[in-house]
């Protein structure tokens, strides 16, 4: 069953001069329990409004939202609070209450009526994790920006809700806090009972966590799909312009001691990358970074060479996109039309694709 279903959701604001501003129009999507759904879109595309409506902080102009099959757009006041207690809405700008760090972090648990001893245990635990030890009694508003962000992270994650609405949370974080937040998100992602809806305008962040991506442009969802689908086959020009093209794979990385490089196993192929990582990773290779040749290249600097078959050629004017298949993996490659002609490439041609270990971005 879907955890969340959004049907025909629209939001229209009335401007002061009486004209209407359509912020969201006819949004439809379903989210499964345990999924990480990323909403990617430029600034002002309606991401925040969508998340605010999902948190019931704002009413949609039309449309319905179902949570576990129950319509939440028509709940009583009491049920709205019960619903909100199942989610955490983390906003871009950290907001803390005018009280001590400890009380800020404990707030969500306190209003849920949790046993004070248990609250104390949990708060102390998370304070340790986010590195705020020694600051418990300080007023949270008197902290530095970075520390305040950590309080905000702790206070929103401590009550472990079923649904996390994360609105551009990484936008203002310094690198240390970004790492902390990513740790939290990864942990939630591993828990199959927790569902995440994350909004971002950052493509790489979207790819990093997403099980599926929804592209929101000018208040409409232009495409929903698995990351590789969205980035290799954008539905329309707008989507393509905004998201750009990208080859994305999930795999397992390990460090090869002999070469000092990372080896990433992706189903039937193995990619070499220059950054050192281990474990489950996502890998990005830009279509422009992949070269193509008819024969297997010898004595070249490319660490990655695969035999492949051209499945599709898309004409984009002076450049072409080739979709090639290598074992069972699909690559998108951008080359000029001139190269296409010079190499005499056609559908079903057998080719070699080549890219450097340094052109492999690991997320």
């Amino acid at each position: 069953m879907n955890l969340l279903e959004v049907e025909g959701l629209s939001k229209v604001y009335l401007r002061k001069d009486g004209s209407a501003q359509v912020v969201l129009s006819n949004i439809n999507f379903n989210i499964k329990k345990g999924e990480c759904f990323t909403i990617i879109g430029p600034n002002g595309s309606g991401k925040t409004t969508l998340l605010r409506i999902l948190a019931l902080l704002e009413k949609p102009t039309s449309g319905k939202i179902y949570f576990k099959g129950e319509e939440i757009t028509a709940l009583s006041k009491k049920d709205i609070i019960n619903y909100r207690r199942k989610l955490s809405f983390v906003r871009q700008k950290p907001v803390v209450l005018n009280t001590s760090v400890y009380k800020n972090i404990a707030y969500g648990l306190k209003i849920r009526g949790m046993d004070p001893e248990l609250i104390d245990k949990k708060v102390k635990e998370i304070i340790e994790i986010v590195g705020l030890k020694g600051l418990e009694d300080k007023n949270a508003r008197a902290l530095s920006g970075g520390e305040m962000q950590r309080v905000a992270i702790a206070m929103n994650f401590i009550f472990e809700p079923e649904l996390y609405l994360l609105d551009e949370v990484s936008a203002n974080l310094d690198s240390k806090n970004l790492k902390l937040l990513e740790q939290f998100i990864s942990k939630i992602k591993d828990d199959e009972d927790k569902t995440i809806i994350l909004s971002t305008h950052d493509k790489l962040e979207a790819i990093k966590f997403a099980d599926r991506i929804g592209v929101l442009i000018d208040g409409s969802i232009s495409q929903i799909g698995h990351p590789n689908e969205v980035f290799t086959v954008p539905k329309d020009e707008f989507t393509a312009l905004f998201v750009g093209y990208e080859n994305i794979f999930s795999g397992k990385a390990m460090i090869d001691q002999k070469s000092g490089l990372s080896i990433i196993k992706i189903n039937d192929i193995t990619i070499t990358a220059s950054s050192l990582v281990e474990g489950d990773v996502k890998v990005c290779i830009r279509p422009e970074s992949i070269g193509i040749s008819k024969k297997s290249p010898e004595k070249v600097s490319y660490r990655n060479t695969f035999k492949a078959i051209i499945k599709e050629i898309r004409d984009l004017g002076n450049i072409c996109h080739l979709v090639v298949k290598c074992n069972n993996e699909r690559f998108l490659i951008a080359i000029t039309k001139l190269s296409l002609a010079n190499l005499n490439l056609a559908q079903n041609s057998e080719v070699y694709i080549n890219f450097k270990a340094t052109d492999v971005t690991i997320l």
Partner: protein
Amino acid sequence: MVNEILQGIIEALILIFTFDPEVWNVILLSLRVSGTAILIATIISLPISSYMALRNFPGKKFLTNLINTFMGFPPVVMGLIIFLLLSKSGPFGFLGLLYSPTAMIIAQLFLAIPIIIGTTKAALESVDPNIKETILSLGSTETQLWWELIKESKRSIIAGILVAFGQAISEVGAVMIVGGNIRWYTRTFTTAIVLQTRMGEFGMAIALGLLLIAITFLINYALTHLQMGEKK
């Protein structure tokens, strides 16, 4: 004249530092009347202002305008209204409250309520909407939200209450009309100063004037302190 003033000041200091019983009576009565009025006004105003700040209802704009108008209501007119209501032939004449401290409390109460409602409502409304939404999205009930908002804006709320107290204790018209300025019974700072000045008893008038200024100074000191704290 200069001589008279000097003599008055010396007399005033003697009255203050010898703890003259009549001066003390005036001080304690003024503090009791204004203090009681402000306490009751606060108890009445907090729920009303909270409702007005947190809920939307038909006529909210009109009510807000009304409250704002009453914030600057002329005290003398308020005194007149309360006088008419409490006078023997008035609707509440049977209570026999005219020319009593209770009557003065009632007059100051009605002067203070709009001030406290107005300032508290503004204080609650000025809480950053992001804070309000954060509290809501953390799962608070309406009462929990209200309590947090009161805590967030407590400085401004206390400031509003202090302003109302300052106005109440230094107000003269209404208490004069409904209290009657009866010695040892309804004589406050302000009514006493008016009377003593008219009688040429400057010592008493100056003594009470100095004490009233001292009290308003303390209130303003507390206000400034609150505002400075807000900026920290």
